[in-house]
């Protein structure tokens, strides 16, 4: 158990250090997410009356697309000097690698979301309602990254890695996307915990199921 934690933390910390040095993922993802918010604002011509309807969708499309960009990078860096092979040579179980990479991507995405969300709320003149929105974001992001880490490892080993990730990732995350958008909409309308509990349950169920399934199948994805 201790070995598991050491390994996961070592991978996580390596990714954090590398990111702190280059700021490659965070910057590109952040800028990209902001651009999506802005572009969608024009695309929907969101006036005062329609904001409530389209805003949650815009926010989550921005997160999903930006997250995909970050996830793509997460395994691309492991291919640079074949360091994924170096990782696989380490005497750790394969799910340690999965959890380590997941921890990194999850953290990066949360940081980006922590910056984007306030900007978004201000730009759309929406009430700032942190705790409930925060929980939705954390849970949905866990779902995104648990599936995303699996598929990013998979698509990194295909010929068309940039296009494979969205093709695999987007249909699978439909349930989280729906639940997150609906819950966010309810929260922005001043919904209570009770109002969003059904949606939170869906997201939690998704998180648990796909964390377990990904842990089980991850070794088949990275094995040569």
């Amino acid at each position, binding site marked *: 158990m201790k070995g598991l934690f050491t*390994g996961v933390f070592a991978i996580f910390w*390596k990714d954090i250090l*590398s990111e702190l040095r280059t700021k490659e993922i965070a910057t590109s993802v952040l800028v990209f997410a902001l651009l999506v918010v802005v572009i969608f604002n024009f695309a929907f011509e969101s006036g005062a009356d329609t904001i409530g309807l389209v805003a949650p969708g815009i926010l989550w499309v921005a997160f999903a697309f930006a997250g995909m960009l970050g996830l793509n990078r997460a395994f691309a860096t492991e291919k640079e*000097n*074949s360091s994924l092979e*170096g990782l696989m*040579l380490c005497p*750790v*179980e394969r799910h340690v690698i999965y959890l380590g990479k997941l921890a990194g991507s999850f953290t990066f995405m949360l940081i980006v979301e922590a910056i984007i969300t306030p900007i978004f709320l201000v730009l759309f003149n929406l009430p700032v309602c942190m705790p409930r929105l925060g929980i939705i974001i954390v849970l949905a992001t866990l779902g995104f990254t648990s599936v995303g880490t699996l598929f990013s490892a998979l698509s990194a080993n295909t010929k068309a890695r940039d296009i494979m990730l969205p093709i695999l990732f987007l249909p699978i995350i439909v349930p989280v996307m729906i639940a997150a958008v609906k819950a966010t909409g309810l929260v922005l309308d001043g919904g209570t915990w009770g109002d969003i509990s059904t949606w939170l349950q869906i997201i939690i169920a998704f998180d648990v199921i796909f964390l377990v399934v990904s842990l089980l199948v991850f070794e088949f994805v990275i094995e040569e």
Partner: protein
Amino acid sequence: MGESGLSSTTWAIEAYGLAKSFGNTRALAGIDLKVRKGDHLTVFGPNGAGKTTLIKLLSTLTKPSGGSALLDGLDIREAPGQIRSRLGVVSHSTFLYNNLTVSENLRFYGRMYGVTNLEQRIREVISQVQLESRLHDQVGTLSRGMKQRVAIARAVLHDPLIMLLDEPDTGLDPHAIMMMRDVLEPFTSGERTVVMTTHNLERGIEFADQVVILHEGRVAYQASGQEIDTASFRETYDRCIGMSI
């Protein structure tokens, strides 16, 4: 003393009919090998002969599709984790992270291998590969030869019993190759068992206690100790891979 009782202590590597196919292409077609502890085995062969596949099988990176192999008496199918902690692998890729410094890279891999006394160990290996001055430079700023030396440091950090060198000097200039040989020397002498694959006949021969020539996934020639005919080895090699008559 019974043969079976001896085997687990005498042999560092045993392979019995080890085979690997990728879909319908057969990379290794049943290989038998035995390497005594402390011996140096050199595996020769042209590109596509199955050298890298052999290394990948022995290092548990890929699973065999037939036969079996034991490293230090452990089955590669049953105890991959225990085998991995006994192995140090140097390949033509360095496995290093360009954005991290030399010491950060070593510390990361040290943690993954559960190396105790890590800081002291990093100081030891880095002085052995003569890169103390570059310890806090990012790997991306180093030359190809230096990176390869860091890769060697990474591979020996956990003091492995067996080293696998998969064409370690590919892509290096002559000077870097010389340098790397000097650096490798202390790690490959002594108790450690070493398997090296290479194209370089002279270098491979001078290094070896045992040689194998692979051709199209099969062992085409095998010799050890006194049997190795250094003088006519090039002819033997050419004959095995069917290049000249």
